[in-house]
């Protein structure tokens, strides 16, 4: 970005005032507030899992499948491990997979979408044909196929699920770029000789963040559900790590004798996803975004 200073640089990005307005909006929206509170609990317990968990998640006690009690708030599993502690450690996996999956899909998808929308022509055709093709599969089915090929494991799951979401981000980003590209300030920037790269990332993208933020939030909740489903089906992070989906799959075997092993992991998943959806919905209202598809199938 050598000699040319960019005179159109001012007023780009999220200002302080905007942020304050968002927090006020959040406090008024009861559902969003509930979402933020629940989500904070999960984030804190994931970060401080070793401190928060009452027991070692892998320590086996003598009591197998003890119903919820004071020492074991959510009971123990078939090997006598404390369910509550295992679920707290499971939070780490779910949140980590959710966030890294969406970050990865966001970076790749947005790059594809912005490049396709900005340059148009042949590049656009190639990229969009691929995106259309991916659109022909339900997201989860792509993720299942990729894990089948790549094999189990944390990074493979992250790669598989994020690849499944790339088309959503690319679509949203491209749509925004096509609109913003027509704006006068983009013309102005081009006229004074600002490089394509800088126009894309400095002038177009910051104005396209609203729908991307909403898409990102929706996608995180679906990524968490997808990871849980993959783990549940035996295609997840692996059997050594306690994940919500894996614990739930264990629980299925014992539903007639120990309902809690099957029920509580699902409640954890539901609460997390619910709180993210609450926040996402408030963001959608606040940012007035309509084009993001709900469901993320």
């Amino acid at each position: 970005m050598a000699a040319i200073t960019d005179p159109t640089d001012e007023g780009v990005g999220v200002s302080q005032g905007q942020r304050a307005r968002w927090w006020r909006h959040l406090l008024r929206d009861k559902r969003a507030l509930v979402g933020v509170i629940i989500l904070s609990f999960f984030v804190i317990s994931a970060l401080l899992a070793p401190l928060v968990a009452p027991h070692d998640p892998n320590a086996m006690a003598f009591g197998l499948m003890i119903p919820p009690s004071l020492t074991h708030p959510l009971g123990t599993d078939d090997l006598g491990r404390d369910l509550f502690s295992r679920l707290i450690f499971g939070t780490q996996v779910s949140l980590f997979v959710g966030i890294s999956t969406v970050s990865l899909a966001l970076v790749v998808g947005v790059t594809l979408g912005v490049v396709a929308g900005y340059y148009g022509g042949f590049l656009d055709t190639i990229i969009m044909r691929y995106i259309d093709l991916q659109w022909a599969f339900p997201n989860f089915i792509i993720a299942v196929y990729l894990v089948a090929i790549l094999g189990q494991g944390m990074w493979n799951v992250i790669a598989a699920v994020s690849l499944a979401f790339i088309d959503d981000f690319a679509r949203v980003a491209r749509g925004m770029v096509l609109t913003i590209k027509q704006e006068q300030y983009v013309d102005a920037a081009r006229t004074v000789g600002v490089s394509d790269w800088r126009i894309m990332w400095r002038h177009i993208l910051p104005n396209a963040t609203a729908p991307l933020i909403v898409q990102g939030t929706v996608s995180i909740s679906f990524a968490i559900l997808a990871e849980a489903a993959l783990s549940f089906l035996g295609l997840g992070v692996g059997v050594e790590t306690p994940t919500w989906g894996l614990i739930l799959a264990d629980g299925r075997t014992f539903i007639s004798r120990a309902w809690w092993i099957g029920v509580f992991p699902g409640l954890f998943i539901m609460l997390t996803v619910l709180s993210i959806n609450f926040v996402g919905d408030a963001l959608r209202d606040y940012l007035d975004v309509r084009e993001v598809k709900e469901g993320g199938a």
Partner: protein
Amino acid sequence: MTGYLLQRLLGALVVMFAVATLVFFMLRLLPGDPIQTMLFEMGDADAVERLRAKYGLDRPVHVQFWKWLGRVAVGDLGNSIYGSRAAVSQIIAESLPRTLSLASLSFVVALFIAVPAGLVSALYKQTKLDHAVTVVAFLGLSMPDFWFAIVLIIIFAGNLHWLPAIGYTPLSEGLWEWLRHLILPAIAIGTPFAAIIARMIRSSMLEVLQMEYIRVARSKGLLTPRLIMVHAFPNALIPVVTVTGIALGILLTGTVVVENVFAIKGLGRVLIQSILNRDFPVVQGSIFVISALFIFANLLVDVLYTVIDPRIRYD
């Protein structure tokens, strides 16, 4: 209309061709060697080579590709390499009716929940009732379907003993037996789907209720059930139908996952079992057929769209 249908059908076939291509190349080009995985990473070099030759994997990729396409075009998806070694098309033909039964019943269940819920929350906008429906819809959307399936089994099969916990009976053995086995999985799959549809019906109904002709009718005191059901609701359905295509992915995904909870040997169960058995021809075949289902369901939705919205003419 016929011209439009033909055109769309042709388009769908092109997409199918592309899907077959992607399914093929993902397996060949991504890191991870199916033959190695098949042998659970334990085969010696000789065994690997023999298997490779057996499945034609030692030939150049483009040769393999045209062979695969040619076979897919005539419905030959290869043979299973696990257990019975049955033809993949045979395995899929057996499982497809189960998946279609389950998916259609789930769709019906979803509509039973979504239509009244969406209408009520639009008509009683911003009341306690509306808020309650919204929160329930959020719960439905956030709930893992496989977990809901387990909760349903605990309640209705484990405690109440009303319904069977697993299995499938074909429709030919009686409607009641079929329904008894499918209703729990259908509720598990249909509920999250219903949550999405209900929210769409609500917002689209709200928009229709703002339209001039409804406002006129309203101002004349004509806000009768007939006005709502005959004049407002069909118009509110139009945008709902378009997004149903996207939401169908959720329905299909739900079927794939929930079949595994209820041990219903449909496409989803076949897919997951074949992955766990490292049976790649079956994995490839079922992924292809599931995508085909999704593509044709979307095509159906698009055609339906032209039927319910007479303003759209494609001739």
